[in-house]
């Protein structure tokens, strides 16, 4: 049977294949394991890093902060660089999951704007270096939504019944209601949270759907008129559908930072710091910001961006917007439970 010979040839070839791969990786050069969000980097950057430093990069990706957290918590892995968001960094710090970064190895940190130093999630800048930031705002169809869109109230406007999308998670949705009422995103006052939930219950008949990423397609395809969304993505959406516009509510909004950190158990801390430093260099920051549409915290990188992006007030809103905005901090367990409870009541 010829097929059998073929089968065994294939078996032998297949057994040898990974070793051929190993022969490449087990060179004396160093390798670091980087774990970042999906679609959050200009791919060429990693190759450039290897060319410059000789350190190879194993680049893998995740979809949510919680996914990253559980992977690190479960053990059995050794990542050298991870990129959690603000509130997840504060959680990881409090659970002793991060290594202190030796900032003398990260000279490019000087380019990171003062606004992004010592933020609430890492008050002394010991564990993290900002990678990207952005704000949440309102994306809407300017041909069909009339009047001045400048407040979260538009998401409660009965004229757009069935045309409004809302975030499908407790923190973001209750947060928007809190802001609408003039409270803080990080409040631990139970009655304020209950008022916010009541607002959401009032809004529910107007909402077409509670969704996350589908906001992108739905808004682009004109299936809905108003939705909250991330500024970085809004820029891309507006390029694809020129009817769309973006506004930052006057009550203030969520300002998020995703930052690079080194988890406990990293095998190549030095190389990880080299990588973080490289990612902070102006040229690389600019490349990533241009590719992803999110905003770079590096002042030096900002100068390298094309004027159209640099002067875009959606990506780089002025201080008046940022001063009113808040980052999420990690909430106490009891409040998180209350969030879940209230949110279940709203959507059920």
């Amino acid at each position: 049977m010829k097929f059998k010979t073929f089968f065994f040839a294939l078996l032998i070839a297949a057994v040898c294949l990974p070793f051929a791969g190993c022969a490449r990786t087990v060179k004396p050069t160093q390798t670091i394991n980087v774990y970042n969000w999906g679609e959050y980097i200009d791919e060429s950057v990693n190759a450039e890093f290897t060319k410059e430093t000789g350190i190879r990069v194993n680049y893998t990706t995740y979809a949510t902060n919680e996914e990253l957290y559980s992977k690190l918590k479960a053990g059995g892995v050794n990542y050298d660089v991870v990129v959690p968001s603000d509130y997840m960094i504060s959680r990881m710090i409090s659970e002793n999951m991060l290594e202190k970064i030796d900032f003398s190895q990260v000279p490019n940190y000087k380019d990171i704007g003062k606004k992004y130093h010592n933020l609430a999630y890492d008050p002394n800048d010991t564990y993290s270096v900002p990678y990207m930031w952005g704000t949440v705002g309102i994306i809407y169809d300017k041909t069909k939504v009339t009047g001045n869109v400048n407040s979260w109230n538009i998401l409660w406007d009965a004229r757009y019944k069935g045309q409004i999308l809302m975030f499908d998670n407790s923190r973001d949705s209750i947060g928007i209601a809190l802001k609408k009422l003039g409270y803080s995103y990080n409040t631990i006052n139970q009655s304020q949270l209950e008022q916010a939930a009541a607002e959401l219950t009032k809004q529910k008949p107007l909402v077409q759907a509670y969704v996350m990423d589908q906001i992108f397609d739905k808004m682009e395809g004109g299936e809905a008129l108003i939705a909250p969304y991330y500024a970085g993505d809004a820029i891309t959406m507006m390029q694809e559908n020129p009817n769309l516009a973006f506004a930052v509510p006057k009550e203030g909004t969520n300002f998020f930072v995703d930052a690079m950190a080194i988890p406990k158990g990293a095998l190549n801390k030095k190389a990880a710091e080299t990588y973080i430093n490289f990612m902070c260099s102006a040229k690389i920051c600019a490349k990533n910001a241009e590719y992803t549409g999110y905003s770079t915290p590096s002042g030096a990188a900002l100068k390298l961006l094309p004027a159209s992006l640099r002067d875009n007030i959606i990506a780089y809103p002025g201080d008046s917007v940022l001063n009113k905005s808040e980052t999420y901090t990690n909430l106490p367990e009891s409040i998180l439970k209350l969030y879940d409870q209230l949110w279940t009541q709203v959507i059920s």
Partner: protein
Amino acid sequence: MAPEKLVRRFWESIRHIKTFIYRFYVWLVLVFFYAPIFVLMVFSFNNSKSRTVWLGFTFDWYLQLFKDETIMHSVYVTLVVAVLAALLSTVLGTAAAIGIAGMGKRQRALIMNVTYIPVLSPEIITGVSIMLLFVWSGLKLGMLTLLLAHISFDVPFVILSVSPKLRQLDPHLFEAALDLGAKPMSAMRKVILPQIWPGVITGMLMAFTLSVDDFVISYFTSGPTSQTLSITIYAMTRKRVSPEINALSTLLFIVVLTLLVIVNLRQSRDNKQPQRKEEDVR
């Protein structure tokens, strides 16, 4: 009109409607099966990142796909693991099936039930428990753990596709071969294996597809060096699936389709021609 005629007309029209409904139903099923794939293929040529707005024709996503290191590396990981897992689990599974066939009734029932457990238990439990085992035993999650996990969930499927073939076999065939002077190994190789070969191949193909397809178990058992394609795609969905994935899926679909056509052609040719036997000349 005569009443019989009316009745006949009535039945005739009923029959027409019936055939119409049958055909319509078949088409409906086909549309349900293939419309998503068709949409996916069309949008792999869309000159925009959008999945809803058509902005013209382009091959850009195909070019970018081959430049995208994360995707290409995960394709490599997926294929290496799937091929290796399929081959190794076929060897293990076939041997196990032959062993099981030779067992006594009660023992066989016991082993077959044990084999069914991983098939029936939820993937997430398999995934988590395998991961816990690896973490507990100090193995670092990576290529090896991924491969071991895949082999472990592939083997039962191979056993289950080989066993029926063995049951169809005349139990005296093996004895006859021995009586005619064959050594046990060559009787196995020249008599038993050729008979169960279709089951072995089916098992291998099934193992391969399951490996390529798997998300849950891979998700728990992969590490920094071994991200499979399904995990990469999942991670991309935070923003949204890039059309590169459409391009990749289109290519995979075409490859699978070609394979299927080739397999079918081979089969129909084999069925037409009288089977010729190649004798190994010693």
